[in-house]
């Protein structure tokens, strides 16, 4: 099924189309490895996984074309301007020049970045960069977008604007797979999983997990689980 994926290994889970799925875990729990397998840049040793309907073993290139990806560490080229970055990533995903032009205009307008269209991305505040990076990751209208700690260090107001972009995108049917260390953001997800030592120790809606562990916040669930 498009927009859905199934990952089965030491870890097993399904993410539904249009769902915001929070992928939580302590540092070193295996989140990055799992994410690398899902985006087609690392082959799992055992098991079976489908992303956007494509097999991670046989069709990693199809996966790459059908997903969007941004991370805290790398998302855009600092030495290119805002417009150049959009054109570059649009080009990589095979968008026509005309479409890139239309999309650039839409994107600048939506983010209110018209005034910095020709500014180097490296000189923008982190929050602007991250919102731009998210929009760029959505340029080719992927079925799924993977966000690896997209809001780390971002100010609290911009962090919320970023999540409103996530909500909007999910509302339009894009599947969102997101990692974060902000436990309040975990509560924004439809469902979350908590990974401990390479295994998924909890998977449910934030509400159900809080009920299950009899606590008031996901932070407390995390603290109970993450050290085993």
């Amino acid at each position, binding site marked *: 099924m498009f927009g859905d994926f199934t990952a089965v290994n030491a870890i097993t889970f399904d993410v539904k189309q249009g769902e915001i799925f929070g992928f939580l*875990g*302590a*540092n*070193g*729990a295996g989140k990055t490895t799992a994410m690398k397998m899902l985006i087609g840049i690392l082959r799992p040793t055992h098991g079976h996984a489908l992303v956007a309907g494509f097999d991670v073993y046989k069709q990693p290139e199809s996966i790459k074309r059908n997903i969007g990806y941004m991370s*805290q560490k790398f998302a855009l080229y600092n030495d290119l301007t805002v417009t150049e970055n959009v054109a570059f990533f649009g080009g990589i995903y095979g968008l026509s020049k005309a479409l890139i032009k239309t999309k650039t205009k839409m994107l600048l307008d939506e983010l209110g970045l018209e005034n910095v269209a020709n500014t180097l991305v490296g000189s923008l*505040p*982190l*929050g602007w960069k991250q919102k731009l990076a998210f929009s760029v990751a959505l340029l080719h209208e992927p079925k799924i977008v993977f966000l690896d*700690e997209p809001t*780390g*260090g*971002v*100010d*609290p*107001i*911009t962090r*919320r604007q970023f*999540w*409103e972009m996530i*909500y*909007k995108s*999910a*509302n339009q049917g894009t599947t969102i797979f997101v990692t974060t*260390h*902000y*436990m*309040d953001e975990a*509560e*924004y997800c439809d469902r979350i999983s908590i990974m401990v030592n390479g295994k998924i120790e909890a998977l449910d809606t*934030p*509400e159900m997990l809080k009920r299950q562990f009899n606590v008031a*916040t*996901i*932070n407390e669930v*995390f*603290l109970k689980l*993450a*050290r085993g």
Partner: protein
Amino acid sequence: MGITLDNISKSYNGIKALENISFEVNDGELFGLIGPDGAGKTTVFRILTTLLIADEGNANVAGLDVVADYKTIRQSVGYMPGKFSLYQDLTVEENLKFFATIFGTTIAENYDLIKEIYVQIEPFKTRRAGKLSGGMKQKLALCCALIHKPKILFLDEPTTGVDPVSRKEFWEMLKRLQQKGITILVSTPYMDEAALCDRIALIQNGKILQIDTPDAIVKQYPKTIFCVNANNKYQLIEALKTYGHQHSVYPFGEFVHYTDQRNIFDVEDLKAFLKSQNLSKITIEQVQPTIEDTFMELAR
């Protein structure tokens, strides 16, 4: 003693990174510099650790001037920069020994101070620093910053990118260092960590928004916050933004924090409005503000 900043300003290429920053950190205090990326926190640290000279203003660290007495300051402070800055090609033990040696001391002499942290990374003491996990790097960096028994410890975003459990452990460690008489200036973008400091300065765009104890800062929040929930969060946020009387609408964990422009308003009226927007399972309750609410209100 402690730290004093008096009208410190600093620009980079004409852009003001810090504008007339003044605050004091008392001897033995655990003081937090709370603000997002780009607020100017690192510039404050670099000025106080004598690595950068301010354009204007004066600053004292442990009673010493950051410009005139820079050499003495460097002997008596510990600094953990935001970016991992140890030698990646040296092992855990070699890094620690290196820092002890350049400060004219030995690991054995101050082992008591770092023991509790060091035992956690000791099993990996022959591993190269570059090969450590994020959490272990952070612990090694803290050991290296402490090995000469500094009077004042500067920690620039020690917990950024660190998971909540490790963050909690790190703060427990800081509290114990404070009890040993070390003055600590720590920065963080995590607002929940602010509550763990004796006093905090909220900083954004190179300016101090407020300085006080966490409790006092929260008490000064000017509005009444209502915690709102409904069946669909995205629609709820959109609806609240079109209500017409809203002052602020911010998603906050499971709920949305809402403030109204009016001093007195009828919760039932808002409830009816949300119902008219096809929302169900609506709950509206008054809640106490947090540091994050205050920060957002001040930063607006």
